[in-house]
C-alpha cells in the first residue's frame, strides 16, 4: 500500500490500451481549432478590406472629387481585374479560381 506504485494507482490509473475514441476526439479538436483560426483570419481580412475601402471613399469625399472623374479609373480597374481572372483561368484552370472564390466569399 505504501510503495510508490500503489500510491500512483490510488491517485489515478493509466488507460490499459490506447483509446481510439480519444485519438478521434484529439483530431476533431485539431480540426476545430484550425477552422476557428481560419475564421478569425478571414474575419480580420474582411474587416481590414472594408475599413480600407471606407477610408478611401472618405478621403475621396474629403478631397471633393466628383464621381464622374473616377469613371476612367474604375473602368481601368475593372479591365485589369477581368484580365487577372482570365490569366488565372488560363494558368491554373477554372477549378482553382472557383476554389479561391469560395475561400474568399464562402465565409462571409
Amino acid at each position, binding site marked *: 500500500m505504501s*510503495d510508490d506504485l500503489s*500510491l500512483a494507482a490510488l491517485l489515478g490509473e*493509466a488507460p490499459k490500451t490506447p483509446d481510439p475514441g480519444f485519438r478521434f476526439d484529439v483530431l476533431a479538436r485539431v480540426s476545430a481549432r484550425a477552422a476557428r483560426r481560419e475564421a478569425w483570419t478571414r474575419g480580420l481580412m474582411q474587416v481590414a478590406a472594408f475599413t480600407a475601402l471606407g477610408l478611401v471613399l472618405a478621403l475621396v469625399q474629403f478631397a471633393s472629387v466628383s464621381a464622374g472623374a473616377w469613371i476612367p479609373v474604375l473602368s481601368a480597374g475593372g479591365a485589369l481585374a477581368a484580365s487577372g481572372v482570365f490569366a488565372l483561368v488560363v494558368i491554373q484552370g477554372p477549378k482553382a479560381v472557383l476554389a479561391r472564390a469560395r475561400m474568399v466569399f464562402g465565409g462571409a
Partner: protein
Amino acid sequence: MDPAEEARLLGLARRGDMRAFGRLVDAHQPAVRAFLRRLVGSYADADDIAQEAFARTWEVLHRYDGRSSLRSFICGVAFQYWRRGRRADNRRLARDTAYSELEDSHTDAPQNTPERLALRRAMEELPADQRAVLAMCLGQDFTHAEAAEVLKLPLGTVKSHITRGRARLQAALGLTPETNP
C-alpha cells in the same frame, strides 16, 4: 515506440500528416493521461485537458527541438493548460463537496474509496509544482530528469518534492515514512 519510427512520424506530422499524428497520439496517450489523472483527480477533466494538450501540440510541433522526449514535451503543454485552468476553476471547486468530487473522479475504480479520498485531499493541499512532480514520477512513467525538464525545475528540487510529497501522502493514509519497507 521505436525512436526512429517516432522521428519518422514526427516528420510526417510536421508536414501536415494527421494519420501520423494520430499514431503519435496513440503512442503517448497512456502516459499523458495517467499523469493528468493523478494531477487533476477527475478522469473526465484530465482527459479533456489531455485532448486540448495534444491538439495544441499539433500546432506547436515545429517548436519541438528533440532535446527532451516528445512525451515530456506534450506533458509540458498539458501542465501549462492545467495551471492556467486551475486558477479559473478554484472558485468553482470551492463550492463542490469532497464526496461529489470523489464520485466524479473514480467512477471507473470505486475500490479503496477512503484511501482515494484522503490522497486526493492531500494532493490538493500540495503546491502545484510538487503535485505535478508526484503525478509524473510516482507511477514511474517519467524519470526525475524528465519531470525537471517538463516543469522547468532543478533536478534537486524535483527529488526533494518527491520525498516531501510522498511523506505527505503516506501521512494522509495513516502511514509514516519510517514504516516504508
